[in-house]
């Protein structure tokens, strides 16, 4: 609850800050201060010290898992602010408002990680999405940004419609007439047809949010068109929040009858892995490539939904951290570049050796090479899936797709180290020592989680 309230409050503070802040650079520091406070408050709540005592009537449920997830997300956001805070200034003049919207998104994130009724799921998802529609279009005079924003908005609204229809059907189908997600849980019996239809609609709507195929079509265009710094935020933090909501919902409401809808998840996973990985291979723009790669990674994260066991819950947290850290790091570099194509990375190994090394670590992590968090995350996902015991072929298919993913991630690595730099492009990237150090910290975190995943996982059982 601390997080929800504080993020909302800080969003309001930032909103008013837009009026009072004289310099464009000030909001960044306020935002960093805010997120630090929120992290601290959240950790406090994790250890049982609530600041705000609110009776939610059971509509929100703060367990160790959701609070822990919040902490991870906020820490990622902090790192994101530290790395890319200045890039908001490039979008336009409303820097403070951008931050304010980000905080509202974070409010949505904290809601979807702990919702207990479909109503709050719906509200959370909307709070998460609406600021993002705006942020996507925040580069107002950029037609790509306009286009992305419109596409995102229309499709997002459409998926909201699907989701609401699903909720309505589920409401009608369960005899209790309840929106509480644990009340929907019907045990292992046969799925009533109304609930089955509602489930499919919810699955589709949530798949849309987490960019699983074939509901992923908005992703490449929106990620590509949005200002890079916004892309970094929404492709990482918002997306993993979507996953948490997804899993939360399906585990509590439909977990017991998983066998009746697992096939759908299998189809979605297979399609997502295939489309994400294969399409990414041909992309020339790193930004767009990362968009496809985020689809591909979503395929892996969907395994948590496929398996729905403890390992999957552990894995999704790890995956959230690993994927977010690496992507934030990469996007922060792209945000500094004038050329998003792979050629933009040419010779980075020579001009920016430290950055090159950290980027390589990020890419290796995304590929899933051991000693990086990406590996442990994938490992947990695969383990969860194998533990589930069904559809081993899907796991094998997934690892083959992971191998395909090496193709496009390594194209960037090849550009960094084995290609000669093109002098005119990206000659003077504004790289500060602080930026470098934060990169190193992120890389360090990735490796740390690669060696000791327990650092993240153990807290679930605190």
């Amino acid at each position, binding site marked *: 609850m601390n997080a929800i309230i504080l993020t909302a409050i800080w969003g309001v503070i930032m909103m008013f800050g837009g009026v009072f802040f004289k310099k464009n650079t000030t909001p960044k520091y306020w935002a960093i201060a805010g997120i630090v406070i929120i992290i601290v408050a959240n950790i406090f709540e994790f250890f049982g010290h609530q600041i705000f005592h609110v009776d939610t009537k059971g509509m929100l449920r703060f367990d160790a898992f959701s609070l822990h997830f919040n902490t991870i997300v906020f820490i990622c956001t902090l790192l994101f602010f530290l790395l890319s805070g200045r890039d908001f200034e490039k979008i336009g003049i409303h820097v403070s408002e951008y931050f304010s919207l980000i905080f509202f998104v974070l409010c949505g994130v904290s809601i979807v990680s702990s919702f207990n009724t479909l109503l709050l799921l719906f509200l959370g998802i909307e709070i998460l999405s609406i600021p993002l529609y705006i942020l996507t279009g925040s580069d107002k005079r950029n037609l790509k940004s306009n286009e992305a924003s419109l596409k995102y908005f*229309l499709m997002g609204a459409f998926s909201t*419609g699907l989701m609401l229809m699903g909720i309505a059907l589920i*409401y009608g189908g369960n005899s209790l007439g309840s929106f509480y997600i644990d009340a929907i849980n019907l045990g292992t019996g046969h799925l009533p047809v109304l609930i089955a239809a509602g489930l499919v609609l919810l699955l589709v709507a949530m798949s849309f949010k987490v960019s699983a195929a074939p509901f992923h079509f908005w992703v490449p265009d929106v990620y590509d068109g949005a200002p890079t710094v916004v892309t970094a935020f929404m492709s990482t933090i918002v997306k993993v929040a979507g996953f948490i909501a997804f899993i939360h919902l399906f585990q509590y409401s439909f977990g017991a009858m998983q066998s009746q809808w697992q096939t759908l998840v299998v189809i979605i996973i297979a399609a997502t892995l295939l489309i994400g990985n294969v399409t990414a291979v041909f992309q020339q723009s790193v930004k767009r490539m990362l968009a496809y790669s985020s689809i591909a990674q979503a395929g892996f994260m969907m395994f948590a939904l496929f398996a729905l066991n403890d390992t999957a819950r552990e894995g999704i947290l790890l995956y959230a951290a690993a994927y977010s850290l690496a992507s934030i790091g990469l996007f922060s570099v792209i945000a500094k570049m004038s050329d998003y194509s792979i050629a933009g990375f040419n010779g980075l190994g020579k001009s920016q050796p430290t950055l090159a090394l950290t980027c390589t670590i990020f890419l290796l992590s995304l590929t899933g090479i051991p000693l990086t968090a990406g590996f442990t995350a994938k490992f947990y996902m695969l383990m969860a899936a194998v533990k589930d015991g069904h559809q081993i072929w899907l796991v094998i298919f997934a690892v083959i797709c992971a191998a395909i993913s090496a193709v496009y991630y390594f194209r960037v690595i090849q550009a960094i180290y084995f290609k000669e730099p093109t002098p005119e492009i990206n000659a003077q990237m504004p790289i500060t020592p602080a930026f470098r150090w934060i990169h190193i910290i992120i890389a360090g975190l990735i490796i740390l989680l690669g060696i000791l995943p327990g650092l993240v996982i153990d807290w679930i059982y605190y």
Partner: protein
Amino acid sequence: MEIKWYLFLSIALFCIGMIGALTRRNSIIVFMCIELMLNSVNLLLIAFSKMHMATVNAFGTSMATSAQIFVFFIMIVAAAEVTVGLAIIVMMYRNTHSIDINFLNRLKN
């Protein structure tokens, strides 16, 4: 009336809205179609709320209430969405003098 007629009606409205969203290129009309879809959901929810009228929750209120409140929230959200959506459409119109959803087509492949 049997509940099924409401169900079919709202499905019909939902699908008509969907067909509109699929076939029209005017972004405002597409948006209106989506609103139509939301309204069909509202109708369905209220129909179901009547069905669950007898069930009472832990707080002593009828389960029908929760659905009606839900509809209320849907309306809130729809209003917010409309604000943002129209702002986006207007912004695009300012830049391109078009509200055709296919007019801007820089992002593809």
